[in-house]
């Protein structure tokens, strides 16, 4: 107990009054009517609900959501399975198996080496975007799409079938990869890229 009532840690404490209620207060009816008025005023307010599958909440231009593995202009996968994304990943969510490109796969993969298996565990991923920063081939990007809910844990391990962008429906990442970002990233004079 505080011995000296004048000493207070904060000045936020209030003196509570235990005064008798007046007749009007004891009737409760004015207070009830006031409450009814408040609820009724909310009845006509605009609902805050966003009806998700039909209406999507607007996200920022550089929102970090579900990853995409980009293709180049000729539709070849950019990823060369260097493993820098997996190395940079703080949650250790990324795993991959590299393979060598054969001569009849020239139209499929841009580099001589490619990822035959590329998996991101969406339950581990913290969507920090370090993989994107680390990628020297501009292959992985975070997009404004969401990771859908699943009923099985294994379903959250996304393979190449879900990560690589479809050939006929390229995914727009121009908001995250602006010209400034690209020049900065590819600038060999900067220490991060030496």
């Amino acid at each position, binding site marked *: 107990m505080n011995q000296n009532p004048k000493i207070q840690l904060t000045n936020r404490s209030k003196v509570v009054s235990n005064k008798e209620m007046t007749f009007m207060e004891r009737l409760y009816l004015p207070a*009830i009517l006031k*409450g*009814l008025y*408040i*609820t*009724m005023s909310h*009845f006509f*307010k605009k*609902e805050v609900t966003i009806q998700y599958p039909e209406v999507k909440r607007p996200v920022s231009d550089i929102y970090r959501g579900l990853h995409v593995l980009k293709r180049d202009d000729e539709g070849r996968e950019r990823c060369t399975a260097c493993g820098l994304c997996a190395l940079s990943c703080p949650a250790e969510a990324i795993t991959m198996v590299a393979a060598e490109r054969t001569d009849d796969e020239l139209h499929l993969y841009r580099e001589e080496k490619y990822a035959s298996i590329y998996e991101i565990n969406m339950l581990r991923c913290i969507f920090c975007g370090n993989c994107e920063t680390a990628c020297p081939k501009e292959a992985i990007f975070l997009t404004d799409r969401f990771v859908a809910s699943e009923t099985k844990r294994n379903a959250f391990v996304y393979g190449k079938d879900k990560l690589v962008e479809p050939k006929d429906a390229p995914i727009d990442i121009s908001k995250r990869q602006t010209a400034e970002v690209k020049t900065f990233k590819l600038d060999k004079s900067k220490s991060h890229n030496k």
Partner: protein
Amino acid sequence: MDIHFLTYKLSLAGGILLLSLLIAMYATLLERKVAGFFQDRLGPNRAGTFGLLQPVADGLKLFMKEEFMPANADKFLYILGPSLTMLVALLSSAVIPWGGNLNIGGVDYSLQMADINIGVLYTFAVVSIGVYGVMIGGWASNNKYALMGAVRAASQMISYELAMSMAIVTIVMTTGSLSVNDIVAQQHGFNWNIWTQPIGFLVFIVCAFAECNRTPFDLPECETELIGGYHTEYSSMKLGFYLFSEYINMFIASAMISSLYFGGYNFPFMDVLGVSPNWITIIGTAVLFIKIAFFMFVFMWIRWTLPRFRYDQLMRFGWKVLLPMAMVNLILTGFFKLLFK
């Protein structure tokens, strides 16, 4: 009793039954919608347009659920509880005049199931049986929370029934009749009882809330303290019966409030409209249902505004506030009746 009369009564009874069930069904949807709007949400809107199929989906879900019966429950009473609640909820609709007379082919058809001369007493009797459904259900569940809920329900209903009766006795005093039909008929046009009995109305509506176990008087089933109260151990359609009967009760209570205090099927300027009596009856029925809908909305409005009473507050309010208030109202009414007659 000729076959003609029998068909008329049976179809009227069937109509009222179906209508009560339909209204109760959609009252559940309305409740959730209204709750949503009061909380700046939308309420259910996935099943059908505006969620119109939601009650069907809910009912279907309840039918599909596992029928659970506690091991040591009294099987007979356990089933009797919800059945009785449902039965009693539906019974009281018999004496409510749903409209005036329809004249078809020179014969008058009353839109009231039974115009018994003790209609008000009948309603009381039926409503007080309602507590047995809750008590029996709570007792038969063999569960301490259910029993607590049942005990609360019993004491709550007893304390509020008295004040409710006194509020209606004043109506009976001014009307001079125990028949609901007479009471409604005397409020012809705009001479509604609410103008002469505002205190009585206040007491009655508070008691109606208590009788229907609606917030702020939903102590028998309060989730925070008693899990589910008297229906803790119930599942599937037995639980559905309990929940459903609450909405039927609400519908009947709204109908009673409209009939006793707000003129039932009477509406202002009904004599100067200059249309045939049949049309007056039809419009009157529509007006009655508008009044009922309004009071059901008030039930929901109050529910999503006020918190639940504490148990001792509830008892104190019933015995020390409502009952004296009803008594004073009774005495005042008698006094004025002597003075101005």
